[in-house]
């Protein structure tokens, strides 16, 4: 069990809007951001594309300019005030950048490689190490944040941006750092969309997590960043994180949700909290038949008191590597705002789903909330957030 750590800032960008405020307003009014896919594909599909213009990077970082980097820049601009306080409080060598992404700059490479195949040469300005790799986005982030501490990307598919919460917690606890910029980003890529199509996992319409006739997921883009510090003016607390593996299948969940259950139990143990204290769960809730069924079993086995459960993927789409941080940011809104959004598209509910999925916006006092993320490889993370004391 470790001490809770203050979350001192949060920003988000996705198809609902360019800021956390815009995201909150869409969630409050029940507006989905899913729409027509801007990428040329051999099939039609709804996605969560960012529609707002993205800021240009500073001139010195122009060679690193990609959609991923611009999304990062947008989120950092939103965080500027708490970042200034963080920078004043801690030395740059004690500030880490811990990101999650599954795509990094794959969208750039995808288009560059197409040009290579069609024309025999890569675009003249293509640079793998400035536009695609994890080091590229880390360089941009460290420069924009002013951080000189440890910096890495966790890339564990759909848990990528939930992993950094656990890492930040350990690094602060071990006195390796004093603060971290934690979060993740993914962008829309043709390969990702075609890959999920090959798995027959894409919904033909807007996804309907936990609904009786759910038929798959929608992919989205964007992400969220959160500031986690040893001490500071807390908007909420990072109370615990649980990590586990299914040890079952590379792309399918354990049918009883065993790994998911372990992740939630470990998050509670990390926080030193009883399961009864959990007031709300932001579910992974992708909208695929197997994932939602397994997650429901896991939730009900850990949380027998039936706290309200919501999936927000019908609003934003599945942000893959950006999902964990985005949904943690949304879960945090439950604590700070006193309401949880409707689980859009959940009605009529699948009768075999025993978790208490709420299909209407709900007001309440949410002191401890769990945010679940599950991924290919059987990788599971559950983040437990709490109200500032």
């Amino acid at each position, binding site marked *: 069990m*470790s001490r809770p750590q203050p979350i001192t800032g949060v920003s988000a960008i996705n198809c609902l809007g360019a800021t956390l405020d815009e995201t909150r307003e869409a969630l409050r009014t029940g507006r989905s951001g899913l729409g027509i896919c801007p990428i040329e594909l*051999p099939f039609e599909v709804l996605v969560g594309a960012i529609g707002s213009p993205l800021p240009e990077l500073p001139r010195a970082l122009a060679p690193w300019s990609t959609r991923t980097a611009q999304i990062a820049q947008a989120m950092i601009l939103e965080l500027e005030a708490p970042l200034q306080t963080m920078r004043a409080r801690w030395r740059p060598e004690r500030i880490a950048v811990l990101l999650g992404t*599954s795509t990094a700059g*794959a969208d750039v*490479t*995808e288009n560059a*490689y*197409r040009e*290579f*195949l069609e024309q025999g040469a*890569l675009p003249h300005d*293509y640079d*793998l*190490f400035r536009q*695609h*790799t*994890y*080091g*590229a986005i*880390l360089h941009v982030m460290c420069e924009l944040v002013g951080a000189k501490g*440890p*910096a*890495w*990307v*966790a*890339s*564990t*598919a759909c848990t990528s941006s939930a*992993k950094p919460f656990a*890492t930040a*917690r*350990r*690094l602060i*606890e*071990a006195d*390796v750092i004093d603060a971290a910029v934690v979060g993740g980003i993914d962008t829309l890529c*043709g*390969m990702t969309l*075609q*890959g999920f*199509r*090959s*798995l027959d996992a894409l919904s033909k319409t807007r996804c309907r997590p936990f609904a009786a006739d759910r038929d798959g997921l929608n992919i989205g883009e964007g992400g969220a960043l959160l500031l986690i510090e040893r001490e500071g003016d807390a908007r909420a607390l990072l109370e615990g994180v649980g*990590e*586990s*593996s*299914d*040890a*079952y*299948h*590379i*792309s399918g969940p354990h049918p009883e949700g*065993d*790994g998911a259950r*372990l992740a939630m139990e470990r998050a509670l143990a990390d926080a030193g909290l009883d399961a009864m204290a959990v007031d709300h769960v932001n579910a992974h809730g992708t909208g695929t038949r197997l994932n939602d069924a397994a997650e429901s079993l896991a939730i009900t086995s850990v949380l027998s008191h039936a706290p309200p459960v919501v999936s927000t993927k019908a609003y934003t789409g599945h942000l893959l590597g950006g999902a964990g941080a985005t949904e943690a940011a949304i879960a945090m809104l439950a604590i700070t705002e006193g309401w949880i959004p409707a689980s859009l598209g959940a009605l009529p509910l699948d009768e075999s789903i025993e978790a208490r999925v709420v299909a209407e916006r709900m007001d309440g006092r949410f002191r401890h909330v769990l945010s679940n993320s599950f*991924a*290919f*490889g*059987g*990788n599971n993370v559950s983040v437990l957030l709490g109200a500032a004391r």
Partner: protein
Amino acid sequence: MIEVAVLGLGAFVPGYGGLAAWSAGESNADLVKASGHLIPARQRRRASGLSRALADAYAESLEQATLDATRVASVFGSALGESATMIGLLDQMWDENAALSPMKFATSVHNAASGTVSIATKNRGYTTSIGADYDTPAMSLIEGISWVAAHDENVIVCCGDEQPPPDLVPDGLGWGLLSAAIALGPRSAASAHGLGRLSLPSIETATSEPLRRDAALERNPCIGLLDLVHALSSRSSGTVALDRGQGRGYATRIWVEG
């Protein structure tokens, strides 16, 4: 300063096989491909060359450390991850206009090796997969050592990269495949295993000279972990660089008694 015990070492280098052969310079032309013997046959057939190489290094360090494979935590590091699989998918997409292979897509994720090993060993514990270009070995060690510090439990840190896609990297900047692994535990375990201790990496000047044997391997972003396991297997104390000049200059101190 955080210190941890070294419990086991492993590596896979084409033409050498395991760490002992690499350190002794005993090449074997038959050992070009990693066996992936840790992975059950059905999954092994689907595993990439990188995943098999990482699994071989992991298995060697696991065996030397005599750890419980179903429980030990793991950190997998790779700068580019499953880049050959990604290029194969892009070829399907752009060149062949074909539907993507669902299995290739599922194993194109950076954590393919992490997931494959956890499934092979029936391990429901913590595993992760990280990357930081040429700082991948240093950052993987920091992630692993902080796990040991926080939980007082063992961890295997395993890093590797396969050859980068030749069409995407300028001539002369590519590298050869390698993987390396190190099993770490609480400092108190050091004397029982006798392999030494190491410190949390920090940015400092190295004192030990890395092995110079193969220029293509030395460009691999994960060469730093191979340098570290070689230094430990050679039983030489000192400060070992975790990159060959292209990273941020992280190094780790090692102490080998006796």
